[in-house]
C-alpha cells in the first residue's frame, strides 16, 4: 500500500526538523502512542494502539529515523506486531522551505499482515491515510505550539 502526500507547517524547516527528532513530540503526534522510549541512536521502542472506532489493535515495535540529511530529508521507519498481526511502514520525508513555512512531502509504503490484511482490505487504505493525516495534524499542532 503506497501512501503519499504533502503537509504545510507554519515554521521554518530547521524547526520542523528538530521537532521530528524530538521523541516527546513524536510520541504526542503519533496517534494512539502509549509509549515511546529511546532504543539506541535515532531508534525508539514504541507501543501504539492503532484504530478506527471499534476496530483497534495494540502493536509493540520500533520507530527509526534513518538516512538523515538535516534539515532536508530522512526515512521514517516503523514496525510493530500485535494480536491482529503486524504493521510495517517506511516513508521518505522531504522538507522544503516555502517562505516562512515548510512544506513536508512524504512518499512511502505500508504493509499490514495478519487478520487486518485478511478481512480489512475494504477500509485498510483509507484508514492508513487517515492515521497518517492525523499524525501530521497533531504534529503540526505540536510544531506551531512551540
Amino acid at each position, binding site marked *: 500500500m503506497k501512501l503519499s502526500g504533502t503537509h504545510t507547517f507554519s515554521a521554518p524547516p530547521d524547526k520542523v526538523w528538530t521537532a521530528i527528532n524530538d521523541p516527546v513530540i513524536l510520541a504526542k503526534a503519533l496517534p494512539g502512542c502509549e509509549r515511546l522510549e529511546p532504543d539506541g541512536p535515532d531508534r525508539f521502542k514504541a507501543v501504539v494502539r492503532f484504530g478506527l472506532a*471499534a476496530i483497534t489493535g495494540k502493536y509493540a515495535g520500533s520507530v527509526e529515523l534513518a538516512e538523515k540529511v538535516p534539515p532536508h530529508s530522512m526515512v521514517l521507519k516503523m514496525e510493530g506486531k500485535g494480536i*491482529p498481526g503486524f504493521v510495517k511502514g517506511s516513508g521518505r520525508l522531504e522538507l522544503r522551505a516555502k517562505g516562512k513555512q515548510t512544506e513536508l512531502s512524504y512518499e512511502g509504503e505500508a504493509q499490514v499482515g495478519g487478520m487486518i490484511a485478511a478481512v480489512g482490505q*475494504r477500509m485498510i487504505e483509507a484508514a492508513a491515510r*487517515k492515521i497518517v493525516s492525523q499524525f501530521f495534524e497533531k504534529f503540526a499542532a505540536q510544531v506551531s505550539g512551540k
Partner: protein
Amino acid sequence: MIPSSFEYQAPRTLEEALRLLERHGDEAKLLAGGHSLLPLMKLRLASPRFVIDLGKLRGMSYVREEAGVIAIGAMTTHAEVASSELLAQKCPLMVETAEEIGDVQVRNRGTLGGSLAHADPAGDYPAAILALDAEIIAATSSGTRSIPAREFFVDMLTTQLRPGEIITQVRVPVQKPRTGSSYVKMPQPASGFAIVGVAARLSLAAGGKIEAAAVGITGLGPKAFRAEAVEKALTGKKANEKLFADAAKHAARGIEALGDLHASADYRREMAVVYVRRALNAAWARATGKKA
C-alpha cells in the same frame, strides 16, 4: 472465530444503559443487533471489556407517526422497517432501503440505530437518512439532542455521537405529495455492502418542475454524503431523462473515493454517476405516479 472474553450486560431501561455506558466509557461497546460488532469481536479486531446489549430495552422498537413525522425507535430491526405498513405509505424510501440490507438473517437482527452508530462507509441506511433529511435523536443521562442527518456522519466509522450517547430514535418526514424516492445499489458480490448506493428523493411542482431534490450516496467515499452538486443541477428544472443524466455526472464531485479489491476508486466514481441517474429516473417515475 472466538472473541476475547468480555463482560455482558443487558440493561432493561435506557437509563440503566446510559449509566453503564457512562461508567465503562471507552471500554464498553453497545450491542444493537450485532451484525457489525460481533464479527469484529470474533476476529478480535474489536475487544471491548464490556458489551452492553440494548436488545432487552423496552420500548425502543417501534414505528409511529407523530405530527407529520415518522418516529422510528433505534432498536427497530431492518426487517421491521422493511415490513412497516406505515413507512410503506408515508416514507417508502426507508422500506426500500431496509429491504436492500444484507440478507434475511441480518435484517432480522440488525437495527436502525446500530447501523447508523456504526457508520459503515458502505452501509445502506446512511444514504436514505441523508436523502430524507432525517433527524437522529441521541440521549445521555442529562437529556436528549437532535442531530440532523447531514451533520451526523463525520468520517469512516465516525459519527457526531459523543461518548456516553445512545441513539434512541430516528425521525423521518412524511413524504409530500408529488414526491418520489428510490434506493438503488450495486452490491459488493460477497458482503452485499454497497459499492455504490444511491438514495434519491424528488418533489415536483404542479408543472413538472423539480421543487426539491435530495441525493444521498453511500459506498463511494469514507462516509455517506449528500450530492449537492447533483441536487443543484436539478432544482427548479423541468424533470426529464436528459436532465438526470447531466446532473448525475456531478455525483462524485469533490469526493475522495475509496477503492478496494471489488471496485477501484475510479470505477466507483463512474458507477456513482450511473446509479445516481438510475435512482433519479426511478424516483421521478414514482413522483409522477408511474410504476418503477
